[in-house]
């Protein structure tokens, strides 16, 4: 039911988006994204049961990795 890895949006049409995962494409619904109007092709989203439930925050991802690297030095 749950796709653990973030999927990239390759197309947006109405309230739906086409996402790519492991070379295959799937249609997902954007109805549960609060800022769906700000969702863009190229964004990474978390998918669950046919719905995008969150966009990946690129800055937070970078900060987490940076923190880990600094912590381990």
């Amino acid at each position: 039911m749950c796709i653990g890895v973030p999927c990239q949006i390759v197309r947006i049409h109405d309230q739906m988006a086409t996402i790519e995962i492991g070379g295959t494409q799937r249609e997902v619904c954007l109805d549960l994204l609060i800022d769906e109007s700000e969702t863009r092709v190229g964004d990474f989203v978390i998918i669950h049961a046919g719905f995008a439930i969150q966009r990946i925050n690129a800055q937070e991802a970078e900060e987490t990795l940076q923190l880990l690297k600094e912590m381990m030095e």
Partner: protein
Amino acid sequence: MKYVDEFRDATIAQKLINRIQRFKFNRKVRFMEVCGSHTVAIYKSGMRNLLPDIDLISGPGCPVCVTSALDIDRTIQLTRMPDTILATFGDMIRVPGSSSSLQNEISQGAEVKVVYSSYDALKIAEDNPGKRVVFLAVGFETTSPTIAAAILQAEKKGLENFSILSYHKLIPPAMKALLTGEQVHIDGFICPGHVSVIIGSKPYEFIPQQYHLPAAITGFEPVDILHALFMMMAQIKENRPAVEIPYSRAVKPEGNPMAIQRLYEVFEPSEAKWRGLGVIADSGLKLRRRFQKYDATQYYDLSVAESSDPPGCECGSILKGLKKPSECPLFASVCNPSRPIGPCMVSSEGSCAAAYKYG
């Protein structure tokens, strides 16, 4: 793969393991995860063997597994009714009830359609106006907003032949029940990543505040899980329990307000029966009054004489963290993924299936 490979980095993982190993508490520290995807990720990574001072146990995190035999029996009963199509996520097909399974009912002629999304079930209802289409609504807070969205769509479209069996579960009340029950010793919780995408971090605040225990919301890659373990070990060491979010790339403290709004517009908390954990107050979801006509139990008599779990199956104890899969007498002998006896072996997210495949 972006946001995946970086969090599988072996150098970072090894350094985190070294740092975790430096904490010494003169006892094994026991952390529980309550998410099927974490269960699989932990088994798959093999990290248990690398962390001898930590006991990682699985809790009630697999939605298929926690569905009670009674609710499976009711669903089976429903598929025997005339002019009825049951729509379900594929995982539920092989889960055994007291004396049958949906798979068995399909072979007897029941109309059961496997769907990928709740919207697929709406489409089936639109395409079959002469039949009642019932969606088997299982899952945690990650799934229930998608069902709520379907109910709102059904209302908008005026779909009269669509309804649901609401067997949803809420995760924080189950975590609380485990802590209150005191049957299993827990030193901290790895909180579920994608349930938390929806609900945020606040619903877990009772863990540090009332039980003085650490918690960390994390993702599914080895570095994510090790990062969470490191944070919780540090919380114990420094005696400052809190809910931390190493998975901040996906989880905001406030969660997903749009999804929460839809969820609670359509549903309200209700009592629910969990496999293993029994009945827990306010741990399920029922449709609000405005949406009563989408409640399948309004149209069907689903009374079941007696329900029972598969004889000898220890899924109930495994879901509470009281036993490990290998401690079940059926595990890997008569119960295996190709002929599963209990739900924890049926679901790919179940502890037994993960232990069998990777353990």
